[in-house]
């Protein structure tokens, strides 16, 4: 990044992405934080119920999804670096690979939901299930939105729209995707693992 920055830009730190997207990301993190807080608060009062219901979750699927999202984030970083190095088409391929990982996440999560619904899990079946479905589905919707954004970025990269002097859109979209990833990194241990 610094190789392209002018001397003035180097002296004062530059915000990657648009200020508006950071406000938006903060609002999103606030929403998840409220849900996480409610989860923690309720879990503390229903420890045994939560621990028992948690055993019904597929932790392997959760771990696989963690790997998929982390990989996707890494690939998005490569795409941004590629665009900074003026390698649009190459960067587009990185972005496409990231999209594939994101779709993989949706597929794994979809299979998990299908198994859960077959087992009679619903928003009203238990407080833990209410939180599990609410938190993961809210996140699921964010993955879908993130993928739509990545698809738009991919299209832009293919057309050579993002260059070192025009990174605002790409960096903003990438920052949003990293937020989706970050939330999962809290959600997964909190809901699936911590016992």
């Amino acid at each position: 990044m610094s190789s392209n920055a002018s001397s003035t830009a180097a002296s004062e730190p530059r915000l990657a992405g648009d200020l508006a997207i950071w406000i938006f990301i903060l609002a999103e993190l606030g929403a998840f934080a409220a849900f996480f807080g409610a989860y923690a608060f309720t879990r503390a009062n229903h420890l045994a119920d939560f621990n028992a219901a948690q055993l019904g979750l597929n932790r392997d699927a959760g771990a696989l999804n963690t790997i998929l999202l982390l990989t996707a984030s890494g690939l998005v970083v490569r795409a941004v670096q590629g665009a900074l190095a003026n390698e649009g088409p190459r960067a587009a391929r990185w972005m496409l690979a990231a999209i594939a990982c994101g779709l993989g996440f949706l597929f794994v999560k979809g299979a998990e939901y299908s198994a859960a619904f077959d087992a009679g899990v619903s928003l009203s079946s238990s407080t833990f299930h209410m939180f599990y479905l609410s938190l993961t589905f809210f996140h699921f919707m964010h993955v879908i939105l993130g993928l739509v954004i990545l698809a738009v970025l991919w299209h832009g990269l293919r057309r050579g729209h993002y260059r070192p002097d025009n990174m605002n859109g790409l960096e903003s979209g990438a920052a949003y995707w990293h937020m989706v990833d970050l939330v999962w990194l809290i959600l997964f241990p909190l809901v699936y693992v911590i016992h």
Partner: protein
Amino acid sequence: MQYQSQAVAKPYFIAAIGLFIGQIVFGLIMGLQYVIGDFLFPLIPFNVARMVHTNLLIVWLLFGFMGAAYYMVPEESETELFSPKLALALFWIFLVAGALTIVGYLFVPYATLAQMTGNDILATMGREFLEQPLPTKLGIVVVALAFLFNITMTVLKGRKTSISMVLLLGLWGLAVFFLFSFYNPHDLVKDKYYWWWVVHLWVEGVWELILGALLAFVLIKVTGVDREVIEKWLYVIITLTLVTGIIGTGHHYYWIGAPEYWQWWGSVFSALEPIPFFAMTVFAFNMVNRRRREHPNKAAVLWALGTGVMAFLGAGVWGFLHTLAPVNYYTHGSQITSTAPT
């Protein structure tokens, strides 16, 4: 004024101010009735004053929205209004229908009014804010549709901007959600659902889109900041509004017989409803600080700065105080205090 047809906004604004004064007067009457129990007895009972007070609020806001749209859309679309005559005709129809309804509230007992106006054909009366007799409700739909036709045709024949699209989305949403007022099921739970889909989705959904669009328009005019920058913020604000506002409807489902998970969903999302107002405030101050001109209309600048602040304090902070289900249990669930929907 850049376009002659913008002048039709003027009677709308005058009517809005007049009706607002009416709202204040009836509010004062009710306040006095709390202090002096038989004030204006038996001429204006408390429940009638309350109905007039809240209905006037809705009607002056609608006049304001319509007037603002008639003023803003020609400038945004860079063309004269599709039909200024239609706009003026609708003004008089709406004003006369509104006045007759208020007269009906004041001089005819509500049950008699219901009998006189065909409530037995299609029962729509009796719900707070939606007390209007059937002919008035139908009139509102006709006026709203004709107004939307006029505005939409203007946008279609001229320049299409993000701001006018957001405004249209808000205004069409307003008209569509009003249709729920015609469905009045016997099942009390369902009845409450449909009622909230008008009241809540108006106040905490589409009205905020209308406000956002008007604010963006005013900010472009008074600050001279690039349209692109303003529109980007508008997008962020309306996304925050829709996500928190639509799911936040859940804060009305706590005690009406809806599933328990709504206490969580309603609490979390409605707790976030102040965020779009906060974003509006940050947005307005940011844009005014970056202004490229000193606009002579200080009142407009003050409104642009103040509206977000007031909405954040009033709807945001005040609303947040009792939006969480455990708090709301005492303010609404137990009916200890008088129920005031927000």
